[in-house]
């Protein structure tokens, strides 16, 4: 599914010599773990907090859960610059659309806006995005828009470089009909497992629960994450 390629595909304009550090020619990427889960009444989304430039951690407290609208969020993975730019563009388009409609936008609309941009510019962009939120028509929804610009709705979705390590956990531990607390617990455990195994994921675990009432954000610090081994 969402496979993250570590080599930077952008050309660099400078000849690399001793004085040029990695960050000057490596693109900043959110090599990452992101996930989202639907439950009856809303969604729970989660992400790690590491942004890397090559092997240097440019930001260890990144917030990859970006609000697109009051009840719609997106989880960003891939190139930091690309995802920030796409998220900004979609935020504008969705805000405009919502004003025209004079009602809150649908999650499906937000996801399709992402898909249109990611598909049209698929050769130039490196962005894997999970769109999740709540709307009045269909309740909590999770749509995944991986690299290439596909869109599919899933009850639970993981993405980023760390996702490879938690497909098994996701498949065996996700049960339909979980409550919000169970979803939060599931997400925390999944993030902890991925952050433990994936070098490009780490820092703190950021979670958010989106329901009709609004938004609830949580941060689980590194030393408070569940431990799965005594190593």
């Amino acid at each position, binding site marked *: 599914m969402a496979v993250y390629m570590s080599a930077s595909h952008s050309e660099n304009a400078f000849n690399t010599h001793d*004085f040029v550090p990695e960050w*000057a020619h490596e*693109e900043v990427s959110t090599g990452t773990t992101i996930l989202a889960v639907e439950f009856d009444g809303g969604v729970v989304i989660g992400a790690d907090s590491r942004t890397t430039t090559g092997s240097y951690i440019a930001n260890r407290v990144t917030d990859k859960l970006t609000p697109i609208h009051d009840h719609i969020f997106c989880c960003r993975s891939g190139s930091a*610059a690309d995802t920030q730019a796409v998220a900004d563009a979609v935020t504008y388009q969705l805000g405009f659309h919502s004003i025209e409609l004079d009602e809150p936008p649908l999650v499906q609309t937000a996801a399709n806006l992402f898909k249109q941009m990611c598909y049209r510019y698929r050769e130039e962009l490196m962005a894997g995005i999970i769109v999740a939120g709540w709307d009045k028509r269909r309740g909590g929804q999770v749509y995944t828009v991986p690299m290439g610009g596909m869109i599919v709705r899933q009850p639970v979705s993981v993405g980023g470089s760390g996702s490879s390590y938690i497909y098994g956990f996701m498949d065996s531990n996700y049960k339909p009909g979980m409550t919000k607390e169970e979803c939060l617990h599931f997400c925390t455990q999944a993030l902890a497992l991925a952050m433990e195994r994936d070098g490009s994921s780490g820092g703190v675990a950021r979670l958010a629960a989106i329901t009709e009432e609004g938004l609830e954000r949580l941060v689980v610090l590194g030393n408070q994450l569940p431990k799965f081994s005594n190593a």
Partner: protein
Amino acid sequence: MALSNVLEIPTSGFNFENVARNVALEGLLEGGHTKTPKPMKTGTTIAGLVCKEGVVLGADTRATSGEVVADKMCAKIHYISPNIYCCGAGTAADTEKTTDLLSSNLTIFSMDSGRNPRVVMAVNILQDMLFRYRGQIGASLILGGVDCNGNHLYTVGPYGSIDNVPYLAMGSGDLAALGILEDRFKPNMEMEEAKELVRDAIHSGIMSDLGSGNNIDICVITKQGVDYIRPYQESEYKDKRQKRYKYGPGTTSILTEKIIPLELEVVQETVQRMDTA
């Protein structure tokens, strides 16, 4: 965009006119066995942190061109607006021009709207421009400023990604500087302590990185105003000139002297009164 701009921003696609020219030039020069000049880079240590009363930015002053120090007293902390300053690492020309362009655009904005620009505005304009150029503009910037919403510190990468954090270091000496910052940073520090911490961070970059050196500049931005201390600390390794290199009159003997007076006639004289009331 409801913003008047100094230069017209192209509406579609990317403008890479000069890339083809550069490639052709390189081909010509290599054929003639001449080296293309290496761009002057600020192999650098820059740092910033948010403290209780404002933002403190720091930078070293060495600019390198290959392995030679091109400028020993380079100014890496650029003025953006009365309440926003920007440290630049990467290609010297790119950081200089990008910050100049940003400063011009924000000045126009200030005149139009009658208010000081906010730091987020500067950050968004930079991000927009750098993303459009897809990393071809080698500028890694630390923007710090104080506005009506508080004290802010942002970093903008060459590809157009931004991060908003309480303390930062960039440049080739960033790892050394970040070690000092990670160890001693506390939220809401006092001003003097903050200045010392930034000085120590830059100093560590200078000691541990070949691309950084010479003096340390500090810029303190608060609600009351800006204190741009250049240099905050001079390098203890400044060399003293061995001799005076001035040549007094009489060093070169004059063999012949010929004076040709130029005869100018006044053709027309106009007087324009200025209204100085």
